[in-house]
């Protein structure tokens, strides 16, 4: 029963967020600073993750595909397509569930248990539009940006690893990557990024906004936010793959 109760409250929070998303004045400032925290400050970790994912994928794929029958460009095709349709979005999603999700849940949870949210409400603020809307919107805007960074660095990392280890020449890698490059894959990857961004920010806002109890409550909210974000990212990944491919 609890899960339906949670879904109900989550839905109501989203409904309030959508309804109050017109109050731009009250959340504009927070929106900008959230884009900095969610997007700009997450760029290094996401780029690093992309770089290493691409590099590892290239090295391992070339290890798996040692055969005279398979041309080296196949490695480029596998690596770049995997990164674009799956790994750029999922790896950065899982990392950001920890980085962004935990931060949002902690911030809102602390504000809840120290009555800062009540303080906002008592001043006449709409706390949902002030706190939830800018965070979710920042997720919408910045996750595609982070995805572009992750995907670019992933393919770059793949080329680099192929070149350094000598397993795939850069020209072969690019030939394969281009051979299997479809515009639809980009749309698919970006869709994933947007959906994951929404999942992380909305679930974390929900968990933080409804945190109860003191420090322990905030801790629980943070843990739940990160874990639930990861679970729903994987679930959404499956659903998107089934629906869109």
């Amino acid at each position, binding site marked *: 029963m609890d899960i339906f109760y949670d879904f109900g409250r989550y839905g109501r929070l989203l409904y309030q967020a959508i309804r109050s998303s017109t109050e731009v004045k009250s959340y504009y400032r927070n929106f900008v600073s959230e884009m900095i925290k969610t997007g700009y400050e997450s760029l290094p970790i996401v780029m690093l993750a992309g770089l290493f994912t691409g590099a590892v994928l290239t090295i391992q794929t070339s290890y798996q595909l040692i055969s005279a029958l398979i041309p080296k460009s*196949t490695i480029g095709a*596998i690596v770049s397509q995997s990164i674009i349709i799956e790994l750029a979005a999922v790896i950065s999603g899982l990392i950001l569930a920890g980085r962004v999700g935990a931060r949002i849940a902690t911030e809102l949870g602390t504000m809840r248990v120290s009555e800062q949210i009540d303080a906002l409400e008592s001043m006449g603020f709409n706390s949902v539009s002030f706190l939830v809307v800018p965070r979710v919107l920042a997720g919408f805007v910045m996750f595609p*940006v982070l995805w*572009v960074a992750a995907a670019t660095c992933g393919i770059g990392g793949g080329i680099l690893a192929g070149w350094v280890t000598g397993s795939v020449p850069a020209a072969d890698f690019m030939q394969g*990557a281009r051979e299997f490059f479809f*515009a639809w894959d980009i749309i698919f990857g970006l869709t994933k990024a947007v959906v994951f961004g929404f999942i992380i920010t909305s679930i974390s806002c929900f968990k933080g906004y409804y945190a109860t109890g003191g420090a322990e409550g905030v801790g629980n909210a943070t843990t739940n936010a990160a874990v639930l974000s990861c679970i729903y990212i994987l679930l959404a990944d499956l659903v998107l793959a089934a629906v869109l491919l």
Partner: protein
Amino acid sequence: MKNELKVGLTIVAAIIVAVIGYRFMAETPIFGQTYQLHANFDRVDGINPGSSIFLQGVKIGRVTRVSFQDSDSVNVLMSFNVPQEFPVGTKAYIRSVQLLEKGIEIERGDSSDRLDSGAKIPGFYDEGIMGTVRELGEETGGDIRSSTKRLNSVLTQVDDMMTESARSDIQEMLSSLNTTSSEVETLIQRNNRHIEESVTHLRNVLQNLDGLTTGQEAKVDSVLASLESTARNLDETSASLNEMSREVNDILKKINEGEGSLGRLVNDPSLYNNLDSLSYNLNDLIINFNENPRHFLKHMRLVDIF
């Protein structure tokens, strides 16, 4: 304001990277407009957005969009990565560019006028290699079937021949052949003595003749007559010799001409031909596979593992 600037720059940088990256990966010019042409085809089996476009075997572009023009033709929008527009009169053919993949091949026109981007060129659907292969397959299907049948029966016969009795037959045949040849040898030896005797006789005769001729010219005539009959005898001997060698010849000839099981085994040309063409076909397939493995592998979509 500083935060707004950071956010703005980040978003703009991401958009720029995305656009450049996309155009780089899609092999369209990174800056400037893409050169595009339309072509109408009756049918476009095997052509999808992303299919390659070739000019004299060089990849010069991709199919961007495939859409219905009207009820009986399909419009294909092609994007090219070429430094110069194509001349008027350029045509597009859908052909098999590799064993299993269809592509569009461009044949340049020879006019001095150029086609603007967005112009329409005529398109043709070629059955291509796969079509030929299909026809060939239909034609040769019967042949292959009967060849296989024949090969089968030959193999059965060979199998039969290799039973115990057949093997002893062959053994017997070979031993009788042996006897025949030794008989021929004895015959020749025996005749040799006869010839030697004949030659001695002849010498005696000649001596007698020498003695006789002096003053016995009248008798020489009768001697010559008897000599003549002797020579006739000699003739007969050589004829029987001839007969013998012809018989040996006949046996060898029979083997040669493929009569009897052994002969067939050695001589049936269709068996050899069938085996030969089989190995040739296999060779072809392996060469094709070696040259273009990804066209056999493409549809495996290895990446779907992830």
